[in-house]
């Protein structure tokens, strides 16, 4: 089970700024371990952010996104006290959803 994300959602003017940290190895599939064996690719492929059931950001990633990925974006609107929900899915089919209250 993957570790929870750290999500910060803050109202800035008329928008909500979202910053996310995800716990993930993001293995490229090109690295070799100490025994010289290639470590298989293992990386987040899709990220979706929703607010009030509406998608406010969706992304497709390859293994070139850095380990323990960081993502920041902004969407119009967003009310303090309401929630932003983020889901990622990796190439092994692992999935993780977390949410944060807008402050």
């Amino acid at each position, binding site marked *: 089970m993957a*570790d929870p994300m750290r999500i910060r959602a803050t109202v800035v003017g008329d928008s909500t700024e979202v910053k996310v940290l995800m716990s993930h190895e993001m293995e490229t599939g090109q690295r070799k371990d100490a025994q010289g064996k290639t470590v298989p690719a293992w990386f987040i492929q899709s990220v979706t952010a929703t607010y009030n059931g509406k998608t406010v950001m969706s992304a497709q990633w390859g293994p070139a996104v850095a380990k*323990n990925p960081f993502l*920041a974006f902004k969407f119009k609107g967003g009310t303090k006290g309401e929630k932003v929900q983020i889901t990622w899915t990796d190439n092994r089919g692992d999935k993780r959803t977390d949410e944060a209250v807008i402050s």
Partner: protein
Amino acid sequence: MQATKFRRTGRAALAACAAVAMTAALAQVSAVDEIAKYRAALQDGNPAELWEARGEDLWKAPRGPKNVSFATCDLGQGPGVVKGAYAQLPRYFTDADRVMDLETRLVHCMVTQQGYSQADAMKGPFGGPGTKSDIEALVAYVTSQSRGVKMNVPLAHAREKEAYALGEKMFVYRGGTHDFSCATCHGEDGKRIRLQDLPNLMTVAGAQKAYTTWPAYRVSQGELRTFQWRLNDCFRQQRFPELIFTSEASIALTMYLARNANGAAFDAPAIKR
């Protein structure tokens, strides 16, 4: 032959060299500036937070054969008190009759309260690709609770003084194939290794700057690294054998450097290259 050729083209070469030297100097200045920008860009969104969150869960959860949490673990400020504890470590603990740094104290609590064997408690002090270290996560959480707190490491007990004096000596101990001591890299102001600035840890200012910014998320490794790890990896690069986790030397050196950092506000977990 080469010398003649050199003399003939001497004037042109000289001009070219001057130009190259200037370009190199300019490149150097802008390289340092740009790397400062790179570091600044990383500040926003430090993955160390992921370790802090996991560490907080580990701190609060019942664990070990006795199924108890760290709520009874005294880091020096009373059972279960985490706030500001790291800023006053290492210190002498009466119950253990020795000077302990944070890691040593955590291991002590895991053994005496949670019922782990010494060997199990000492397992995996440092994480790697695919292997997570509980100790590192706990250290991330505990240290994060001293953010903004002024370093105030005690030097009252005779054993604390002894550890400090030993650490001071170890810092200049030369050995290994390369004759390195800690002071080789960290004993002068304003030096760099490759492009990395080297703090002079023998000065208060240098120790403050360095000690208060560990643990740190190392972007080169994608791992949170503790001060224990920092010492361990310095010795590896000094071509010494491997520093034993929670050993007396590692505590003494930590004591020397932490005490020298007294007065500065603790500012970690940080993020470094």
